[in-house]
């Protein structure tokens, strides 16, 4: 038998990583959230967070995240459902995923052109007789682009859930006289709810925290929690307040993860 300490040497890098890059950052954010601008311990930041300005921002951030998640779901579910009916479904699914591999910034940048004053969207609006509108830097474009970005991540788990669905259940429902809507409502949807939850989780958390989309597409029209954190850290240099908002974002994240009940998902954007 070799020496026990030398045997466990290989665990050192990973343990260091857990200590310095997982535990330490969380503690540091927590520590900074209790510091005011002069570096003294105080609850000022938390008091500030509960003022109408920040509460309103949090609420609007949640509203947008909710809207984005809902619209994404409304499109993603039928797409995922139809995809499972196709012949080469794995290939089609791959085609859905490919755009998500393109850098997010490039996609946002593309919409700068499409939604621009003379862009394609306005040309389309003119052709159908509505006339050109200010699209860029509105909350509409923010929601549209976000839905565009998140839809592959929503389709993926729903597709997987639908794909695992046993088709004999549908036959059974059909035989027992259920209409197509009843079958969907009572059989298909409940059996794929885990995929829906996972998709909502993947969409909702980044929708709360993305800041580059808001900056590029929505201008100053939309402020999300992510934008506020970025603002406090990199513009105002008020790390204390930024950390406080981050603490709340982490708390919201845990609540959402608890509510949607699935772990091991990457929320990124």
């Amino acid at each position: 038998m070799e020496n026990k300490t030398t045997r466990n040497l290989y665990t050192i890098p990973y343990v260091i990583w857990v200590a310095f890059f997982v535990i330490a950052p969380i503690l540091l954010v927590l520590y900074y959230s209790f510091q005011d601008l002069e570096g003294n311990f105080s609850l000022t930041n938390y008091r500030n967070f509960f003022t109408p300005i920040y509460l309103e921002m949090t609420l609007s951030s949640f509203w947008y995240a909710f809207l984005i998640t809902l619209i994404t779901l409304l499109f993603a579910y039928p797409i995922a459902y139809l995809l499972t009916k196709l012949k080469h479904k794995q290939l089609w699914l791959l085609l859905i995923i490919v755009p998500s591999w393109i850098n997010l910034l490039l996609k946002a940048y593309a919409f700068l052109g499409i939604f621009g004053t003379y862009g394609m969207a306005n040309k389309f609006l003119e052709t159908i007789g509505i006339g050109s509108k200010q699209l860029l830097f509105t909350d509409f474009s923010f929601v549209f682009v976000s839905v565009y970005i998140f839809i592959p991540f929503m389709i993926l788990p729903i597709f997987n859930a639908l794909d695992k669905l046993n088709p004999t259940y549908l036959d059974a429902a059909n035989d027992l006289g259920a209409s197509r809507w009843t079958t969907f409502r009572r059989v298909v949807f409940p059996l794929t709810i885990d995929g829906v939850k996972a998709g909502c989780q993947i969409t909702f958390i980044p929708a709360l925290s993305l800041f580059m989309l808001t900056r590029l597409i929505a201008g100053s029209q939309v402020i999300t929690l992510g934008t506020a954190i970025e603002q406090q850290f990199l513009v105002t240099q008020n790390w204390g307040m930024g950390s406080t908002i981050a603490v709340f974002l982490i708390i919201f994240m845990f609540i959402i993860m608890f509510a949607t009940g699935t772990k091991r998902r990457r929320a990124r954007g």
Partner: protein
Amino acid sequence: MDKRISPLSRIFLIVMFALLYLPIFYLIFYSFNSGGNMYDFENFTFDWYKELFQDTRLLIIVLNTIVIALLSALISTVIGVLGAMMIYKIRSSRTKNALLSLNNILIVSPDVIIGASFLILFTIAGIQLGFYSVLLSHIAFSIPIVVLMVLPKLSEMSPSLLDAARDLGASRWEVITKVVIPYITPGIFAGFFMALTYSLDDFAVTFFVTGNGFTTLSVEIYSLARQGISLSINALSAIIFIVTMLIVVIYYFLTRRGKKSPDLEVLK
């Protein structure tokens, strides 16, 4: 497409696919526009590509991005594999789950929080913001995904395989290099590729922890895009699109070789 879906559904799917790819092809299309904007196509030109390849600053940034991606993927794969082995060996399921939860924190955390907390960390640790801070952050957020890719491979490995190797007189080192590593190689490759794409894709974390002298492509695109439209970005995105497609195809065939259908759930 199949006959099992109605024509209306088919139209819906076609429109959705078209919408999904429209922005990407829109970008690529206007990268050939001599007019210099994204709405009025004048003449076909390669000027923006020429400009792109003459822009040494941008080329250095591309190089930086690739170096960071390769280095961080390599290092995080090594640490991630070691971590997965460590988690695999833990017997108590409670410790195991606790460690797995810790492992997954960086996967579920929003990028802004990772970026902000790493910024605090590097400032306190006295690490200058630049190449090393970006590299360290990329390694840090890639490790958990490597662990998640490798761990299932380790768990599905039959313990009798290890017993057999030991019975036949293999040393601990031989068991690991001759039995374990070859068995989990698909997981290691998947982890490496994921780490690579996470690093190439990352904007928010890098944006927080990069200093004045160092930028990656995402950050550069962001600052260029904030100034408005420049068709060099379009040219760049066309090239990125082709490279991405190549990587996807390679990845698709690599994972396909191992099993019948690629496990797309883990792609992102």
